[in-house]
């Protein structure tokens, strides 16, 4: 079995790319994709840790898998909602550049 640390490094790299994307990209769609990247980094991490843990008797520990599936489900819902918001945003303002959209400022 591959050492756990490989998975964690992969996960960290993916998370870093995602975080950079959220902070640096201006397009709302790309930010959304970066968030997906971060979520998936977390999923990899969870599953890897779960697979490497001692099981209880003959059963493996499924906590990580369950959480990962939760995250995938929620991420799907979130993407749907977020895409809808971005779509409305584009319809109303003709742009998805978040630096142009600062109506929440005080």
């Amino acid at each position, binding site marked *: 079995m591959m050492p756990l640390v490989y998975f964690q490094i992969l996960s960290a790299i993916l998370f870093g790319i995602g*975080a950079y994307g*959220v*902070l*640096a990209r201006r397009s709302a769609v790309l*930010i959304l994709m970066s968030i997906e990247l971060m979520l998936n980094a977390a999923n990899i991490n969870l599953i890897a840790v779960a697979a490497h843990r001692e099981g209880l008797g003959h059963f493996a520990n499924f906590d990580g898998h369950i959480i990962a599936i939760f995250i995938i489900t929620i991420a799907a819902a979130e993407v749907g909602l977020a895409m809808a918001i971005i779509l409305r945003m584009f319809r109303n303002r003709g742009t998805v550049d*978040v*630096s142009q*959209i*600062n*109506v*929440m*400022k*005080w």
Partner: protein
Amino acid sequence: MEWAWLIPVFSFIAVPLIVVLGPRLPAKGAFLAILAMLGGLIVFAMVAVDFLQSGSNTNGCGISEFTKSLTCLYSINWFEAGSFVGDSSDGIRLVWGMLLDPLTVLILGLITIVALMVQIYSLGYMHGDPRFGWYYAFHALFAASMLTLVLADNFLLLYVAWELVGVCSYLLIGFWFERPSARDAAKKAFIVTRLGDVGLLIGILLLWSEVGSFSMVAAFEAANNGSMSQLTATVASLLLFAGAAGKSAQFPMHVWLPDAMEGPTPVSALIHAATMVIAGVYLVARSYPIFVASGDALTVVAWIGLITAFGAATIALTATDLKRILAYSTISHLGLMMLSLGAFGYTAAVFHLLAHGFSKALLFLGAGSVMHSIDELDIRKMGGLRKVMPLTALLFSIGALSLGGIPILSGFWSKDEILIAVSEHLPPAFIILTFMVAFMSALYMGRAMFAVFFGNLNPEHEHAHDAPMSMAVTMSILGVFALVFGLVSLDWPGNFDGIGTLVYFEKELHFHLVPWIAGLSTILAVSAFVLAYFIYARKRISLDSTRAKFNWLHKAVENKYYFDECYQWIVEAIVLTSARLLGLFDRAIVNDIGVNGPGWIVKKVGISMKIHITGHVYSYALGTMLGTIVLGVMWWLRSVG
């Protein structure tokens, strides 16, 4: 005698009846007030007869320890408050009670007679006034309150009635409120007397805390047997005197009474000459045991009385408005009564109070008759009116001569008693000044009488008419009183031993004449009238040169020693300005800084802190991440350390 409470109650009942039913009744319900007063007079007559016949064994009566005269007490409970359980009982029990003694009975008589006369007189005088009904309602309320004041057996009830007569006086002075002068005079009268009442109320509270009851008898007892210290007695009596001085227009609170002449003349006759203004004198006479226990307080009363009597008499000499001459004369005579009380002349003061009440009411009604006829008050524009209104002239002259102290008329006897008391109990300076007051009072009375009714008739006044029936009859009745009332001071063998044996303090006083005093006062009075005759009726003597010589003095007197200006300055420069400053303080400091200040600070802090809110998604995301990292590092450090 137990029914004496009915005397004011009739009038109290009349008030709401006139207000509610008045507009639907003939004469707007005026007759209700008159009937109530007449009922009061009848009950009074029965009570007085009953009182004179009863002795110390009558139910509720006894010989008072303080005045040594017959005193009757009756009361019912009003309400009580406070805690009466246990030994630390601390509360007030208030009663509606009446105290009948010679002082009360005599003054009740004065009030009922003069009030009835004035109310009947007003039928003619106020005829056609748009607020005729209200006039009688206020009159009835006044009469009821004034009678209650005199009957009260405890200080609190006295205070209640005291304030009620004050407000009636306010309402009646300002009766013609369309005139700004009447409106302002009413306000001034109320506020000035109210300032005196501050003292009165504190004095009453002081007596209560000393004695534990508002009862007058209890307070007198404490003062008499020495359980009240002399200091307390002095403070309490001076506080009571502050109220008395306000009501009786004593220096320095005399300024409201001349202005009060803005009211209808019958009101001046009743309230500002015969009844309400004597309430102060009555209060001092009533609480005499406390004043006597203090001693020092009586000296103050004497001094204030003398200053008032002298100062007001000088102003009366220069005033040109007929009613104001009478007003200053009232102040001066009230001063004489106070002086007499200060000189242990209890009987003399009460006697003068009655004699002055009848005479002055007569004079005011006479002045009202003149006003009613020619609508003029400046005596310089009048003259010779006796040709067109002979009855008024005759009656006014009786009043003037009586008040001036011409023998046989009532004013002579009472003034004589005062002079005797002053000469016996006070330093010689007092008696000299009192004689001067007596002289001046004859002089200004002569001046008013001769200037108005004698000399040449002003052609404008040729069509003047004499008083109508209701006015003539009432004036005549008061004229009889002014003529003969003084004779009650004499010893009438077999019938009546003189007023001094009826109303007295501690010991009966039989009539006696001190020849030099009676002689001197007669000479002064007669010479003053003769002088006035030559100056104002025959115009033989001109005052122009004297006036020019003492110009500054004349100016000062004519301007009433600048009291009004001085008070006006105090009100405007001190009271109103400080009120305005305090109002500004409330707006600027308490509100704008104290209340709006914190609001402003919160707003400013909010604005200065809002810079980190950019509205850009990525700045929030950066914050989130940095926060996560910081928290992670902290958690890591903690798990390591």
